């Protein structure tokens, strides 16, 4: 294991991924303490400026995660977010920023496998 411990910020929606992360806790699955979570009402609320701000403030990696398409608590916030991500990701890549540093996910099985593989990808 390298000495470098990437600092990862997870921007998550309240309804699927935050609740999922709670469930991960309830089921005592383990992941790296380098991953911290910030709660939002919906992925639609997650401003790309905050992702930039996180990078500018020293985050090594970012996770953005919310409800699956059609499962959004607000019906379409995640669809709007997805459009924004597509464009934002394309722009970051164009600027030479490794887009693997921002991982987008629909909440599925948050937990050890996801978080640790995410850490490994940045380590």
């Amino acid at each position, binding site marked *: 294991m390298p000495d470098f411990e990437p600092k990862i910020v997870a921007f998550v929606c309240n309804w699927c991924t935050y609740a999922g992360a709670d469930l991960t806790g309830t089921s005592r699955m383990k992941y790296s303490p380098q991953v911290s979570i910030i709660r939002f009402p919906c992925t639609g609320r997650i401003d*790309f*400026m905050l992702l*930039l*701000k996180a990078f*500018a403030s020293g985050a090594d990696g970012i996770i953005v995660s919310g409800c699956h*398409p*059609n499962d959004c608590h607000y019906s*379409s916030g995640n*669809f*709007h977010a*997805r*459009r*924004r*991500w*597509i*464009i*934002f*990701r*394309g*722009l*970051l*890549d*164009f*600027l*030479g*920023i*490794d*887009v693997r540093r921002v*991982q*987008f*996910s*629909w909440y*599925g099985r948050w937990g050890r496998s*996801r978080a640790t593989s995410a850490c490994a990808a940045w380590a």
Partner: protein
Amino acid sequence: MNALREKARELLAAKTVQVVIGYGRGSGGSARAVFMRAPAQAAELIFDATCLQNLAVYLMKPEVRKLGKAALVATPAALRTILQLAAENQVADNSLLALAPVGEDIMPLATFAAIEAHVAAADHDLSAAEGAELGKFAAMGLEERRRFWEEQFSRCLKCYACRAACPLCYCTRCTVECNQPQWIPVPAHDLGNLEWNVMRAMHLAGRCVNCGDCSRACPVGIPLYLLNQKLISDVSSVFQARSGMAARSDNAMSTFKPNDPEDFIR
């Protein structure tokens, strides 16, 4: 050019409009924007290959708005700007007259419908050269691209000339001026410069009409048009959308399709 001058004189004499916004000869053979308010001034108008500026930018300036109804010498990009401004509720139909140069002639377009028809007849795809330049970037390695932009942005002075020149950067209070919270750091440094330039490009996604005035305005020569063209290309290929084609249209970024691609989402 004569047709243009004649038209401008006629419009001002008949008081159909209060001001004609066009191009005049500036220093060193360049073109500059001129604001004609009397028929006699019309003789100063020019239109040639040096007339590149998107004059629609002035439609959003309060000091120009105060002058009254305007006629505007409008390049294809300016026409699309008018339609995009209309889609964003910034200009009303029949409130301005676009003068579109067609060869030696001049075509007055008084309504959004007329502008739409004129715009629809032309090709607005990125040119082969523009496409090739984007292709060159795509072919570069990630690191090479990063170094390229790092060098470019390191020269950014945060003078915001790009913003002033952009006809779609019309917000009265830009996020840059927002200090609670301070989204963009005030001093010019690498990280803040990156944030500013990403924000500028993102805010133009689905809106930019590729007039190129941001790059022309940049005093340190950052090729900002590349960022815009990259997003134009993505919006067009992924969402099949193009800005400035209709006066009533939803923005590509504020709408969605349930089947938008998501191969990158895990």
